């Protein structure tokens, strides 16, 4: 009911009512206002007298590390600016689904066209005598937190019932406020739902050393009150008693479905919702957050709730797109100075389940240093991880776990973390808390700890993706992901969790790279427009992320049939030169196997003079780079140099680096230069998911550095060794030994077949090292080494695809080079 008169009459808008002014509900409104700001008149009911605040940060408030003002997410002015009618301190008592109206306890009503329920959860209160005494509270909201802060100022003894995440955070906060705190826990060790016994024991020791007391495996029998009706002691089943002026119940939470149930909405461990977050009972009513049960799960972490909010918003906005398909979650504890991570089936064999014998465990334990790591493996896949003391690899393990990747080939290094599988890229910090604000977290984009924390606070970021978008930290090579997640945890309380392992290519579709590629092959799609139509693309002509990928999938799946679309290629591949920071270009002609001669060098020198090219540089791939060429000069530069395109600008075969080899070298056993030239001539003009680099060395001294190339060849006395999946770039990766062959012809066939497999199966922008790490080396070996006919077929396919491909520097028509781009108007 609008209370003020609008000055200008507006068209009748639909009415949206939100019950529950918490993080999930308000985030849904934010998402909705972003995409459809004018669609609804919005009314919000909140039972608490506060605007939306960050509930996860109540623990730091209790611990005195943050203030209540700091954790407000949406101040009252936000509601005003967005024209939202806000009813604070009003609990909704009834939903009248026939009249489409909600009624609050004080009689306030609001009519709705659509209703969003986000009532969160309630703490579970132990049914013991004395539970209604003064000084017995749950730990859920600002009022509870304030009561604990007040109690800490007045009283001495606190008892926290529940040794889980919430209980320990409460206990830690009360202790920091000067109370003597005992944690009473039914289980044999702390956080038994997140930790195994050993990690739980380390945690207990660490917290005990800080001053907490513990009563494990202990059941509470009664709370005893004094004459004024305030709690004074806790009595246990064994008859013993300890003093308590404050008792905090933190023994779990239950989805708050009272209101929904009274309205006849189907509830089962939460309000049952579909993938569109609509209740199954009434399509006008949606539910998000801790109160909602999606596929039987009620999530209690912030990232899944926000994902739900995003999907729900698109449906409220009547776009009708997006499905929430569940999240996988993992746990961290917000106690400053304690690093703990767990995910998946971390108990493994100890869980005693029916197939307990199928679990294998890798354990590293250093109790004195306070480090414990356990990885649980089943069927050659990582299925669980439990880390204590050093959690920087948590996100990597979490990724392996979600992807279900076979780990046989990295098993021996698994425990030592991602940085030991090749080089992590830069210095190995593993504790974000120990870093200074001015320390750099992300070396790729030069982002400091201070600027990340500032962005998290000021822009209200919660998830890794949001931090990446706003700060660019962890958005390039990803080696600092673990650190960024730690910062997120301590600054915003954001959590580890992730959408299903299937990741959409971009916002234009919900399909993954694999699904799109399969559809292009299975349904014989040969043009972009066909893809958009057949696969229900949400945008008329894609975006800068999906279009280059689609274009590659089309031309690699249907060679000679699908048409290349230059406007779907990034600038370098459209202008066949590499754009520089000032908008000029670089030109790198092809030098077969890194060999050149006087006439090529003379032509290059003349071109440099004629076009006043400011920089000439020898590249790492044994070629010559002319830098600072004006776009309008490119065509003439190519013509005057008269050498083939080096494709140094393309996701394609770059160079084949060679050493001198047996022709000259006194150590050489094979003619590596000739082998390199043959490979380069056979493979040039080969577009691929990403750039491809080869090298051929003539003897095991390996001067051409074959060990860090996509395909590396090393000549030995009896033939050639082939290596695959090496990488010298953002993530140094040593190539895997692949096989040994006898003849140059076999080198061509095996290398070509491997590259064709990668061209067909690699996702766009996936290097061979990432491709192999996704599918596993064993799979590649099976396809290339064990299957002779398959290998020959792949090699034939590649030759067919490359046959007659144009040189884009000369054959403009066939290479579809639009010459208009080179002239200004």
């Amino acid at each position, binding site marked *: 009911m609008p209370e003020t008169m609008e000055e200008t009459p507006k068209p009748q808008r639909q009415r949206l009512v939100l019950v529950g002014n918490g993080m999930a509900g308000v985030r849904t409104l934010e998402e909705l206002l972003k995409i459809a700001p004018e669609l609804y008149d919005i009314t919000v009911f909140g039972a608490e007298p506060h605007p939306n605040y960050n509930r996860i940060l109540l623990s730091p408030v209790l611990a005195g590390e943050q203030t209540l003002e700091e954790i407000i997410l949406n101040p009252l002015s936000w509601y005003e600016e967005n024209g939202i009618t806000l009813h604070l301190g009003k609990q909704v008592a009834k939903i009248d689904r026939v009249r489409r109206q909600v009624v609050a306890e004080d009689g306030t009503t609001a009519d709705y066209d659509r209703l969003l329920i986000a009532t969160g959860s309630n703490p579970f209160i132990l049914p013991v005598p004395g539970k209604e005494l003064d000084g017995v509270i749950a730990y859920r909201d600002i009022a509870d937190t304030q009561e604990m802060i007040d109690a800490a100022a007045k009283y001495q003894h606190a008892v926290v019932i529940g040794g889980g995440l919430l209980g320990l955070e409460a206990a830690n906060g009360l202790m920091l406020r000067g109370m003597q705190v005992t944690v009473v826990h039914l289980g044999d060790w702390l956080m038994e739902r997140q930790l195994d016994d050993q990690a739980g024991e380390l945690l207990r020791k660490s917290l005990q050393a800080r001053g907490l007391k513990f009563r494990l495996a202990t059941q509470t029998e009664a709370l005893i009150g004094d004459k004024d009706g305030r709690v004074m002691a806790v009595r246990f089943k064994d008859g013993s008693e300890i003093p308590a002026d404050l008792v905090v119940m933190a023994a779990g939470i239950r989805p708050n479905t009272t209101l929904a149930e009274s309205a006849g909405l189907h509830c089962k461990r939460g309000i049952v919702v579909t993938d569109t977050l609509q209740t199954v009972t009434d399509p006008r009513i949606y539910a998000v957050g801790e109160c909602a049960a999606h596929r039987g799960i009620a999530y209690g972490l912030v990232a899944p709730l926000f994902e739900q909010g995003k999907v729900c918003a698109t449906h409220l906005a009547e776009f009708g797109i997006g499905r929430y398909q569940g999240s996988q979650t993992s746990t961290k504890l917000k106690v400053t100075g304690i690093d703990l991570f767990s995910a998946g089936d971390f108990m493994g064999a100890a869980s005693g389940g029916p197939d307990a014998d199928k679990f294998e465990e890798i354990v590293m334990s250093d109790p004195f240093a306070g480090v414990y790591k356990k990885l649980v493996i089943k069927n050659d896949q990582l299925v669980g991880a439990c880390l204590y003391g050093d959690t920087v690899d948590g996100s990597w393990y979490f990724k392996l776990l979600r992807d279900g990747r076979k780990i046989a080939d990295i098993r021996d290094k698994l425990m030592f973390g991602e940085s030991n599988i090749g080089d992590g890229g830069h210095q190995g910090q593993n504790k974000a808390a120990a870093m200074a604000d001015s320390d750099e977290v992300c070396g790729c984009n030069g982002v400091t700890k201070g600027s990340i924390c500032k962005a998290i606070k000021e*822009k209200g970021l919660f998830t890794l993706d949001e931090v990446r*978008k*706003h700060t660019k930290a962890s958005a390039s090579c990803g080696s600092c992901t673990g650190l960024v997640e730690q910062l997120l945890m301590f600054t915003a309380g954001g959590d580890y969790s992730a959408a299903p392992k299937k990741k959409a290519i971009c916002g234009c579709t919900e399909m993954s790279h694999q699904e799109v590629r399969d559809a292009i092959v299975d349904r014989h799609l040969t043009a972009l427009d066909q893809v958009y139509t057949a696969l229900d693309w949400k*945008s*008329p*002509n*894609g*975006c*800068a992320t999906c*279009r*280059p990928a689609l274009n590659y999938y089309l031309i690699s799946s249907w060679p000679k049939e699908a048409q290349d679309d230059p*406007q*779907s290629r*990034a*600038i370098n591949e*459209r*202008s066949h030169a590499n*754009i*520089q*920071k*000032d*908008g*000029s270009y670089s030109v790198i002609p092809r030098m077969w196997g890194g060999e050149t001669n006087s006439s090529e060098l003379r032509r290059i020198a003349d071109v440099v003079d004629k076009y006043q090219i*400011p*920089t000439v540089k020898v590249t790492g791939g044994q070629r010559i780079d002319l*830098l*600072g060429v004006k776009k309008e000069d490119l065509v003439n530069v190519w013509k005057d140099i008269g050498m083939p395109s080096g494709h140094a600008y393309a996701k394609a075969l770059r160079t084949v680096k060679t050493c001198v080899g047996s022709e000259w070298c006194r150590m050489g056993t094979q003619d590596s230069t000739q082998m390199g030239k043959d490979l380069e001539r056979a493979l040039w003009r080969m577009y691929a998911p990403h750039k491809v680099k080869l090298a051929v060395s003539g003897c095991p001294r390996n001067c051409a550095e074959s060990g860090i190339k996509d395909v590396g060849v090393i000549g030995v006395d009896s033939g050639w060794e082939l290596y695959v999946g090496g990488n010298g770039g953002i993530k140094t990766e040593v190539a895997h030994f692949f096989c040994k062959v006898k003849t140059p012809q076999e080198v061509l066939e095996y290398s070509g077949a491997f590259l064709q497999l990668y061209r067909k199966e690699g996702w766009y922008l996936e290097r061979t090292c990432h491709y192999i790490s996704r599918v596993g080396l064993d799979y590649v070996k099976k396809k290339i080494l064990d299957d002779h006919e398959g290998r020959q077929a792949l090699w034939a396919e590649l030759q067919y695809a490359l046959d007659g491909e144009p040189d884009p520097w000369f054959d403009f028509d066939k290479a579809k080079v*639009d010459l*208009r*781009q080179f002239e*200004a*108007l």
Partner: protein
Amino acid sequence: MSDWKTICAVEDIPLLGSRRVQRAQGPQVALFRTGANEVFALLDRCPHKAGPLSQGIVFGAAVACPLHNWTIELATGCAREPDEGSTPRFSVRIDNGQVQLNQQELDTVAIDLEPVKAGPCTRAAC
């Protein structure tokens, strides 16, 4: 003064592509043609690090800068969230299939911006 200068035919701009317009003074102007056959003109300079927007990928009514992938809205010249900033836009008139720009805007808008420098000229003398 509202004198309009004819630059080229609409078809001279590739669909989902762009052309650059040289001015007497100042950075070039980029003309874009969208899939819906609309034409827009922006200063050929990303608000981030002055990348030439004309070289980017055009999609919907936006262009992705070729240097660091900022998305710039063609209608407003504004960077899409979470990035911030904007680049000047130029009025476009289509007359009988011909693309026209306003001569006064061409002569006055953003004419004194320094071009980005790269190469040996950026190296401190040693």
